[in-house]
């Protein structure tokens, strides 16, 4: 199992430091949450890990690989998948096609084989379709399989977003506020999915979430960011008792 190590990462836009020397370690097999008030730099951190931003200073390593200068497709090829906060689905396509797209790099057949769609290509496509069906089953998306993504409700689209990241068969899954804007019932569903993803599939989960109740319940490890700085870390109990965290969230007494 590989660790993701973020060491001394600083990300600045002009004079503004979105992240300033953040150090954290994502342990394999666990659910790690990153929390913090709005604008704390949580999504920036995820963007740095998944390659959309490149840190101004510091390094990000995953096992033996250095992700500091990698682009998103290189990162995802290492088995790090990501679900976006603002839906970034292929909205004109069906749920099925969205998920099939996520299998892009798991499909190993040649261009010529694809042109005649015979032998390897058709065989791999069929196997692949079966794999996608397994994810659809896992994420309970059966009723929406052939629906156009754009026509689905927000909650379902969020679930498709998670499903799509999961379809890439990652070892590490980055979830950026998968429950934002959902009602209690939908939230409970997603929480169940996240716990299942970790326990049944053995995938490491990094979760960004505002709902502290959820975070405290399911996380093994929590990192707290505020104004781009890491102000606390540890198990849920440790974080809840950390005076700095209390100050950031509730303010001084």
């Amino acid at each position, binding site marked *: 199992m590989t660790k993701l190590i973020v060491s001394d990462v600083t990300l600045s836009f002009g004079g503004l430091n979105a992240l300033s020397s953040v150090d954290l370690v994502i342990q394999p097999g666990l659910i790690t949450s990153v929390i913090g008030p709005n604008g704390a730099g949580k999504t920036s951190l995820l963007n740095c890990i998944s390659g959309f931003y490149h840190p101004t200073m510091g390094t990000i390593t995953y096992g033996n690989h250095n992700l500091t200068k990698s682009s998103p*497709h290189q990162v995802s090829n290492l088995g790090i998948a990501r679900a976006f906060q603002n839906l970034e689905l292929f909205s004109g*396509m069906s749920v099925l096609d969205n998920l099939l797209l*996520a299998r892009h790099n798991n499909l190993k057949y040649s261009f010529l084989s694809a042109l*005649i769609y015979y032998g390897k290509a058709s065989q791999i496509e069929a196997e692949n379709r*079966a794999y996608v069906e397994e994810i659809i089953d896992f994420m309970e998306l059966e009723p929406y399989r052939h629906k156009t993504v754009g026509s689905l409700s927000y909650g379902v689209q969020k679930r498709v977003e998670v499903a799509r990241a999961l379809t890439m068969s990652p070892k590490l899954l980055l979830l950026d506020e998968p429950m934002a804007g959902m009602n209690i019932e939908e939230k409970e569903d997603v929480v169940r999915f996240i716990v299942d993803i970790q326990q049944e599939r053995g995938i490491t989960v990094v979760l960004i979430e505002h709902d502290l109740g959820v975070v405290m319940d399911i996380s093994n490890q929590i990192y707290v960011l505020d104004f781009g700085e890491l102000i606390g870390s540890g198990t849920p109990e440790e974080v809840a008792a950390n005076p700095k965290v209390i100050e950031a969230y509730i303010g001084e007494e």
Partner: protein
Amino acid sequence: MAVNRWLATGNYFTSYRDEQRIFATHLNRLFFFAFLCCLFVWPLLFEVSNKYMLVIDNILIAIVAIIGLNLLTGFAGLISIGHAAFVGVGAYCLASFARVIGDEHILITHAWPVMIILSGLLGAVFGAFVGLPALRLKHLYLAIATLSFQMIFEWTINSMTFFNQGQTISVGRVFWFTGQVMRADHYVFWYYVVLTVIIICWFMASNLLRTRYGRSLIAVRDNDRAADAMGMHPGLTKVYAFALGGFFAGVAGALHAYLYRGVGIESFTLHHSISYLAMAIVGGLGTLNGSFWGPLAIRTLDLQVDNLAEKAGHIFSANLSLATALRPLAFGLVIVLFLMFEPRGIANWWRIVKSYTKLWPFKY
């Protein structure tokens, strides 16, 4: 449960392979092949004048080019205003061979299928090269890059003596198993060739679209950030889309050169590029069958406008050159009307008709 593979009703897929077939039912396939047979047989039954056969050949060649443009603009979302130049690259590939080895050389007259594929490959190379700005540019800026290729292409051909400065470079008559294809059979012969090429192209394109190589095109069109996160290089995917579009265009160009037995710059100007774009829009961007409707509709319109202009010319005075005014007017009007009222093109009408006949006599 009994599976009825003939009708949509009772056609249960029992394997994923069944689901991924091009023809969902046997009836669909039967209709398709019956239609193909008709296309192959009718020139034998009816006597068609060379003039009309030429029009039909032209439509078919445009279809080949539009399949490429549709993959590029419709599926990958990259607007190309230089498609005629890509077609020209294919045609001039053949012309260069004619210049160097002579237009009656055995390579051109006997190995013409090889030459057609070679032209396609050269089109792909040029397409990929012109697509390189896609690594950096997006949307309209990229379209301008393709426009500049169109300009450079025209200028190069016009100023190089090797290319006869845009004047016609002749290409020899080809040979078939029955001997040289002479004037009487020329247009019918090329009708069959182009038809075969279209069928091959159509199968290749629809196969691509159900594999990773086709899905990646749609991915970069819909959301290239997400495409990046899915593990595909968005820039290279776009370059590949250009290569794909260039290949089909190059094949169309070679066919065009053989059909007219010559290559001249006047068939590959900016005007033609825009006209190709119009065909793709009117046919329906992002649908494979739109590539068939577009050329058919635009070329038929052209023909009708010519007829109308001729009739109007008898009524009005001759110094009012109505014919030259009518054509761009009708052309522009059709594009504007389609963009306003049916942006999904004729392919959408086809879809409506199909779903209607599927349910008939019921409403839903």
